[in-house]
Every structure is written in C-alpha cells, then in structure tokens.
C-alpha cells in the first residue's frame, strides 16, 4: 500500500473494497456494475492492492479450524439439530422484534480455546434470547444445544470442563476425555460425566436430567448421588429431594430441538416456563395452587393458543388474554 495514504483515506479505500466484495458475491451484480468494479480498480494501484488483500483474507477463511461449526442452521449430525420452521411464525404472531435471533451462529470456539491455553478456569458466558436456540461447539469437541432464554457459564481448565446453567437448559453431547470430567451444575445439582449425551433443564422449582446414552452421575452438594444410564430421567426439586428414576421417551423430552413440546403428566408451571422461553407475551399462572396441576399435552411451538384452549376445555381454569400477558386463573364456580 502507498505509504503516503492517510489512515482516513486508507479506511475509505478498504471500505470501498468491502463494498465491492459484498456486491460481487451478492448474486445481483449487473454488467454496468461490473464495469464500475473494473473502473474502480483501474483508478489506483491502492484500490487494486486493497481489494487483493481483502480477497486474500476472504479466501483464507476456509482455513479457519472448524469454521463450519459457526453455522447453526446447517443440519448437524452430532446433536441432530434442526431449526423448527414454525418458530418464526410463533414470533411473528407474538409481534416479536427478535425474529432475527432465530438464526444464530455457533459461537465461541476461539474464546474457549483461549481459556484452555491459559489452563485456568476462566468463565465464559453464553446466553440465548427468547425464541433463540443455539448450537455451541466447545473446543474439547463437545456439542451443546442451548434452549431458548438460557444462560450458561463455561469454564475449561486442565483438570475439568465445567458448565453452569444459570437459567434454562441445554442438550449436551460430551466428547470423551477420561482425564477431564465434564460437570454441569444447575440449581444445586451437579451432573458429572466423561463422555455421553444428556439434557439438563433448570425449571422454576426443579432440575431435570435426561440421559440419552452413556451414563452420568447426578449429585447435590450434600454428597447425595445417583447414577443414570441411557434412557433414564431424574428430577431433583428445589428442596433437594431426588425423585424416582424413570424411563423417558427421547422424542418427547428432546422434541424442543425441533419445536415440538410433549408432556406426560407434567406440572403446569413447568410447561408454562418452557413456553415462556419463546414469547414476549408471557403466560402467568395467577393462582399458585394451579402450578401443580398435572397436564398431558403435545403441541408445536406455533400452536400455543390451541394448547391453552385445550387446557381451558379440560381443566378447571380460565385463560384471560390481554395484549401484554396471558393469565391462567382458576375458573369460578357458579
């Protein structure tokens, strides 16, 4: 580059080079615009040099390790992630302004690599917005799928791989590393594994662990621990009580990754908490006694209204809608 260029002039040229690069790859460039590109290059050797450098940088991108993991929308074998087509409709119906966040990128491989290089348990925070499901590739090869409205903190060190769920939940497909256990902490419960796949959901008053394959150890801070293997599910309530180990249907529990929600004898409060991860118009349970109402239902994310109508028809509740909130209240007896 011409050493005589001022920084401002150099920035202008670089910006123009970016504009041309973008335009060339847009799929919409006309013959007249092609001529404009030629003319711009011919104007100055600085223009040519700037574009050549940008082209080199553009070309080099496929050398970036695991760059393909930055795409979340692509079908992924590891975690079988798919983006539910219905979610956008849900967001539009709810008049969301966050529809764009549905299409998100896998993040943070580099950030986590940095923490590993330091061999320190530096924390990195990852969060998803309402309606946003994000696949996350960790540098140890583990694959995560974050539920909507979820926040986690990761800390990789030379002797442990730690993830703390602050809110929400995630599906984990953990790479094997016998030297470094993978520990997921949520609401006073630790899930410890060396390599397996499982789902952890931190609900309003409980943590549910569902193991798809391999085995995990679930423990609380009072050293109470339980072993789970593939196909088993355990719920630990906020008072520290460990529920019974039950078999679960993978399609039902993990259907959220495809925008499907399915509940078998589930608490109304837990169902509402799941739905609210996808809505700005929140659903509120007015009477605390209704929170424990047991519901069996199945619906797609875009069909919440129908699901609510179903509950209203079969349970002793009334659903009251306003522009900002949907209230579930006990039906008055006449």
């Amino acid at each position, binding site marked *: 580059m011409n050493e005589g260029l001022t920084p401002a002039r150099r920035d202008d040229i670089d910006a123009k080079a970016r504009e041309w690069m973008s335009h060339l790859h847009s*799929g919409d460039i006309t013959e007249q615009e092609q001529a404009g590109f030629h003319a711009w290059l011919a104007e100055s050797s600085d223009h040519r040099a700037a574009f050549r450098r940008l082209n080199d940088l553009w070309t080099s991108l496929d050398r970036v390790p695991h760059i393909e993991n930055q795409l979340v929308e692509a079908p992924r074998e590891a975690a079988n992630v798919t983006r539910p087509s219905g979610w956008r409709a849900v967001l539009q119906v709810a008049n969301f302004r966050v529809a764009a966040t549905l299409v998100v990128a896998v993040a943070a491989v580099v950030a986590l690599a940095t923490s590993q290089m330091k061999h320190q348990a530096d924390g990195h925070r990852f969060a998803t917005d309402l309606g946003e499901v994000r696949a996350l590739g960790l540098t140890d090869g583990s694959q995560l799928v974050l539920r909507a409205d979820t926040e986690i903190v990761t800390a990789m060190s030379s002797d442990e791989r730690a993830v703390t769920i602050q809110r929400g939940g995630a599906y984990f497909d953990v790479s094997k590393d016998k030297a470094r256990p993978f520990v997921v902490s949520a609401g006073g419960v630790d899930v410890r594994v060396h390599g397996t796949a499982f789902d952890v959901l931190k609900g309003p008053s409980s943590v549910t662990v569902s193991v798809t394959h391999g085995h995990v150890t679930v423990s609380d801070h009072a050293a109470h621990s339980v072993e789970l293997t593939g196909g088993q599910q355990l719920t630990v309530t906020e008072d520290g009580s460990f529920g019974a180990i039950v078999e679960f249907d993978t399609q039902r529990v993990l259907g959220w990754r495809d925008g499907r929600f399915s509940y078998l004898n589930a608490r109304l409060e837990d169902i509402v908490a799941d739905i609210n991860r996808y809505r700005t118009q929140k659903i509120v349970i007015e009477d605390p006694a209704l929170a424990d109402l047991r519901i069996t239902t199945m619906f797609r994310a875009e069909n919440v209204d129908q699901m609510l109508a179903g509950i209203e028809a079969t349970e002793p509740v009334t659903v009251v809608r306003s522009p900002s909130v949907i209230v579930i209240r006990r039906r008055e007896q006449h």
Partner: protein
Amino acid sequence: MNLRRLKSVAADARQIADARAGNLGVVERLYRDHWKNLCVRLRRVFGNGPPEPEDLAQTAFTKLIEYTDTARLNDPASFLFRIAINAGRDRRRHIVRANALIEAQFSSEDIEPVDRITPSNVYETRECIAVTEQAIATLTPKQREVLIRSRLRGETFEQIQDACGWSKADISRTLQAALGVLQSAMREYLGHE
C-alpha cells in the same frame, strides 16, 4: 459405498497418470485418515446437498491425486476441506461469475489459485489464521451467519434473505461490517498495512 468411492477415486488416479502410482499409497492413507471427518464437515455446511458432501469429498481426493508431491502436504485436512468447499461453491453460477471477474482483473502473480498445496498468502499462515479465528469469535451471531453463508456455502443474498428474513441491504451491510472487523484485526496484527 465408501469403498466404491475409493475405487472410483483410484480409477481416476490411474487415468491421471500411471507414473504417479506411488502417490496413490499416500492418498489411500489420507483417505483412511480424513474421508469420514471431511464428509462430516461438509455435511455441516451443505447438509445432505445438493451438493452432496460425498461428491465434494470425492472431488477433493481426486484433486489430491493430481499432485505429485502430496508428501509435502502439511495440513491435508485443511487442504481437502478447501478443495471440497470450492467445488461446492463452484456449482453456484454467481460464484463462478464473481471469481471470473476477479481473476480477469488480476494477474496470476496477484491472485493465487485456491487449490495450491501450500498456504497461498500471508493470511493463511498459522499465526494469521489464529488472528482471524479470534476476530470471528468477536462477530455478532448475525455477522457470523451472513459471513459463513456467503463465504462457505456461496449463498446469494436472496437465498440468505429467504432463510433468515433479513433484507438484502441489511445482509450487504452486515457482510461488510464483518469483513471490516476481520480487516481491522489483521491490520492490528500485521501492523504495516
């Protein structure tokens, strides 16, 4: 299926040059070591296709056989991925047109062919790739999505618009902003630009 593909690749190799028969042993080793992972990576970019990941992987291995000096290949996984990605992009007409436009304006000294077996420019050195990797991590999810869709998948703005709902003008601005972040990081690292 994989064995059949290997035989197909091998048949291509024999057609290319019998004299390179010694090279085939290296390719067979590379096939065993890299075929599966290459297909997994390509599936993450292109899904099940089109273009079909296995077809692109086969194209990459066929290209590999054309080289007489595969022993010099210090990063075969990266090389194969690049060849396959570009084979996928080359199936999109607008990419072929864009590449032709760029190549027509620069001499071969200015623009290196992308299928060189060794790094083509300073941006492909290990150090610069690390800088780019770190810069990508600082991009917003939207910037990353647009950048990768355009660069790896070779999607037009219209295709990105259909998939993501953003306007073409927004996509253009986002792509330029993402490239600006990468440029700034590289300028800071290299210092002299």
